[in-house]
């Protein structure tokens, strides 16, 4: 059957329009639904009191602290490793079999589902190394998960620093390490930060890897060896077990707002960075 191309174009355009509208609607709906149900629950008290009675009442203070502790822990491990790897790949070596292996390894690592990290972290850190369910175990596991993201974004950021800046730095008598730390890294910082901030977002939202390694104790963590429940895990437990729907919605709203803010900051930074070097 021959269809007039002009009519075909109209039809297709209409279909695409409907699909796009539906997609955007669904995605927005999720956010607005959670905020609509959750915002009324939010209050200063909700954020600053500890959960009581399994989370049936009280707020989410200890889970906020738990989330922050776990995130900081994982970044303290993943950032030096990730940025170091990126520096090695971009500054200290040329493309070779070794760099290909490192890149492939990091790519594979990024494809591993979080539950596998959870399984691994649970058996290795929690049971075999006797760290127990703790911020340390959870932080290590999360760090492994975040590493590929940080490597990739840092590598891109470092690569985008103009090469002639290197030459200038060398010609002024600096060593390679001085060039990297005094010239390259400061210029690449916004790009690297973008990756780190995106990782913060991921660690805040992660459940599968965290619940089996950091545990789900509701108490305020007191040390690296105390177990801690993150906001995402708290939400998961509240919602699934029907402990308290209002509190679940409240927690979800806090989660979503946090993630949105984190992503907006990352997006802004990235934009600035791109502008600077294009």
């Amino acid at each position: 059957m021959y269809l007039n191309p002009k009519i075909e174009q109209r039809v297709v355009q209409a279909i695409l329009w409907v699909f796009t509208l539906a997609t955007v609607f669904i995605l927005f709906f999720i956010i607005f639904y959670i905020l609509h149900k959750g915002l009324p629950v939010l209050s200063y008290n909700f954020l600053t009191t500890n959960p009581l009675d399994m989370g049936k009442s009280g707020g989410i203070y200890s889970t906020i602290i738990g989330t922050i502790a776990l995130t900081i822990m994982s970044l303290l491990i993943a950032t030096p490793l990730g940025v170091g790897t990126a520096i090695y790949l971009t500054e200290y070596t040329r493309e070779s079999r070794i760099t290909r292996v490192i890149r492939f390894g990091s790519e594979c690592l990024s494809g591993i589902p979080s539950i596998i990290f959870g399984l691994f972290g649970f058996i290795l850190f929690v049971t075999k190394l006797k760290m127990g369910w703790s911020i340390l175990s959870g932080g290590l596991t999360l760090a492994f998960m975040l590493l590929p993201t940080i490597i990739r974004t840092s590598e891109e950021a470092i690569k985008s620093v103009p090469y002639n800046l290197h030459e200038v730095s060398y010609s002024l008598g600096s060593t390679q390490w001085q060039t990297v730390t005094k010239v390259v890294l400061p210029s690449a910082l916004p790009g690297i930060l973008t990756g780190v901030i995106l990782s913060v977002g991921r660690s805040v939202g992660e459940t599968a890897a965290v619940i089996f390694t950091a545990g789900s104790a509701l108490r305020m963590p007191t040390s690296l060896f105390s177990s801690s429940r993150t906001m995402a895990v708290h939400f998961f437990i509240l919602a699934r077990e029907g402990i308290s729907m209002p509190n679940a919605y409240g927690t979800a709203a806090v989660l979503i707002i946090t993630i949105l803010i984190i992503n907006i900051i990352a997006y802004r930074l990235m934009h600035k960075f791109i502008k600077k070097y294009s």
Partner: protein
Amino acid sequence: MTRLERNERLIKIALFVIACSAVSILAVITIFIFSEGTPIMFKYGLRSFLLGLDWYPSEQSFGLLPMIIGSVMVTFGSLLVGVPFGLACAIFLTEFSSRRLRHILKPIIELLAGIPSVVYGFIGVVILVPFIRETLGGPGLSVLAASIILGIMILPTIISISIDSLQAVPRSYREGSIALGATKWQTTKMVILPAAKSGIIASIILGMGRAIGETMAVIMIAGNAINIPRSVLDPVRTLTSNIALEMGYASGEHRQALFATGVILFIIIMILNTIANATSVKGKAAK
């Protein structure tokens, strides 16, 4: 040589050690999962693991076939939902909408990739599952529910990478085709889509990886029955949810069997990764 220059060698060695971290972590995880998971597979026979229908770990019966099929069904289901919507959205935003709309919508859609998966799962539980139960029957916790929610979850991935690869098609292709009198849609269909093919395929494979690896959202909405589903309204258990559901409780051979589940999941993911890697390398080479 100055002191700083002598230090350079140490720095280089230190950085090399750091650079090996990702590979070593991958190696440790791989060795760990395989060494914990494979002995039991060989003890009871690969066949009984891959093709066994019964998962009753307390009775030494470790058939993973229902979970393998479950993972495959849910993943393809999610692609059936996510790919048409995602591609339509990407095509519309690159080819048929104004620059401004694209500049507003693309970052917003990318933001949505950051929403925790448990939130998607929760939406599934409170809205989608009751809806399916009341309109289509069955328990609601089903292949269908899981496919739809996972399909939505992979939308941002598919859309954002597809947009990037569509935009990477040189302007001259578009202009050439339009100059020959083709309509926008004909141009898209005949010129742009084939040119952006490898990027779009990579986006789909990445989405697939996310769907197959997703755990918590699936546990919440798939029902987790160990049966091979007969219809899309039946509950289903995936490889990931099998691990997460029982990991806390498992000991002895049961735990090893969960590692075996991990091994199978791991292999599937690695195959996907390699394919994705190969297509993206091929795509780069073509450009």
